[in-house]
Each structure stands twice: as structure tokens, then as C-alpha cells.
């Protein structure tokens, strides 16, 4: 898994690529919580277009990020979900809990 940040004043896009699983979800969690809790970024966009797989530990990290964003008055916004990632969101019944958009344009306009 690779994570690249595209920062702007007040917001950041985190481009994530590869699989998010037990081996690397702690790394994603650290970056995500760092943006929200330490950098106090108001809007964190997660670009999941190039994520082929996410497991329950990855979902747990996203839920932690969502809770942290709510506690800190920030927004966590996901976009570009593959079929695989969307299926896992639906299995978890989390698709209505997260802010999810199809494209970067729609996410940035939200």
C-alpha cells in the first residue's frame, strides 16, 4: 500500500493505492489520525480509486478516522470506491455513515 498526500490550506487529499489489510492498515490509521488530530485538517479526502482490497482492520481504521473527525469538527470524505471496497462497506452497513462520492470533482464540490 502507498499513501501520497496532496495538501492544500484547510484540506488534504490522501491518495491510497494497493491493498489495505492487517499488514498495513496501522500505517493508514496513523496518517489519517495524524491529519485529523495533530494537523487539525478540516477536510480529509480519501481517494480510494486505486485500492483493490480492504479488510475489516482497514474498515476499523476508517471508522476511527470518522469518529476522530466528528470529535474534532472535521470532515472525512471518501471517493472512488471500487466494487470490492463498496461491497465491504455494504457488508459493514457503513455506506450511509460515511460521506462517499463517486469522483474527486464531486467530493471537492461537497
Amino acid at each position, binding site marked *: 500500500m502507498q499513501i501520497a498526500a496532496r495538501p492544500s490550506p484547510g484540506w488534504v487529499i490522501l491518495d491510497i493505492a494497493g*491493498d489495505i*489489510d*492487517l*499488514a498495513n492498515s496501522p500505517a493508514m490509521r496513523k496518517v489519517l489520525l495524524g491529519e485529523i488530530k495533530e494537523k487539525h485538517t478540516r477536510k480529509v479526502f480519501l481517494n480510494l480509486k486505486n485500492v483493490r*482490497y480492504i*479488510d*475489516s*482492520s482497514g*474498515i*476499523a*481504521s476508517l*471508522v*476511527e478516522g470518522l*469518529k476522530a473527525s466528528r470529535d474534532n469538527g472535521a470532515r472525512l470524505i471518501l471517493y472512488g470506491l471500487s*466494487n*470490492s471496497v463498496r*461491497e*465491504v462497506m455494504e*457488508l*459493514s*452497513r*457503513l455506506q450511509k*455513515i460515511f460521506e462517499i462520492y463517486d469522483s474527486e470533482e464531486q467530493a471537492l464540490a461537497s
Partner: protein
Amino acid sequence: MQPPAELLLRLYLESNPDALCMVRATLQRATEVVHFPEADSRAIVRSVDEALANVIRHAYKGQGGLPIEVTCRRLFGDSERKSSKGLEIVLSDAGIAADPKKLRGRPLEEIRPGGLGLHFIKQSMDVVEFRRKNGRNLLRMVKYLAPSKPEEKPEGD
């Protein structure tokens, strides 16, 4: 009566999270050999991955280098029970015994991290059985192939 089966694959791995991506890739190929549709294939791979993650995290308490065995058998079914064709996967580990109370998953209404892996497995597989035998945890999961639709005859035949 158990349906006829043949050994398709046996993997020996260590309780290292970095091994999971290789198991997923191998399992993906095995599901293609058995002709599962893409969504079922993803469900099987997801279930095995989550089950292995549970072994690493809970049975072995995150300790690396401990043995896990994954055995896949292709189920051929029989002429009377066509739906029993599919894939059987058995995970075996020598970790601490699983607590049956923790094998029930958790209510999804609670929005909190953790506890989703078992839910994914139960939602995705047709059979999920756990037992403890000779000091080992054995998790048996089966996914059946959906019966193929009968071919439509052209009009006029």
C-alpha cells in the same frame, strides 16, 4: 454424506501479516479454477483473509512465525445434489482455543472499530464450522457454486 472432493491446494504459512496478500492472490486463482463468479470469488478471498487475520491476532496474539495451514478442496457434488459443487477451505492453527462466545460477531448497529471480520465470513460463506481437535483450531468454510441456469431452447424447437 460428504460430497466427493479432491485436494486443490495446501498452503503452509507463518503467522505474518505480510503473507496475507500472497494467500489472497493464490485463493483468487483457485476460485477461478472452480469457476466462481467474480463476486463469489471476492467473497471467498475476503473470508479466508479475515479468518487468517483472526488467527494471527487472536489465536497467536500477534506473534509472528507460528504455523498456519490452509487446505482447499474442490467439491464435485453428485448427480442428485448439483448445488454441492464448490470449494471447501479448512484453516488449522495451533494457537489458543477460540472462545465460542466471541465467535458470534457483534451487532452492526454499533458504529465502532473492530469485530467485523467474523460478520464478513458468516455473510459470505455457506458453511462456517469451528472445532478444536488435538490441540488445534480448525475452521471449515464452504462456498457452493450457484446452480447453473438451464439453457434456453430457441423458439420453434
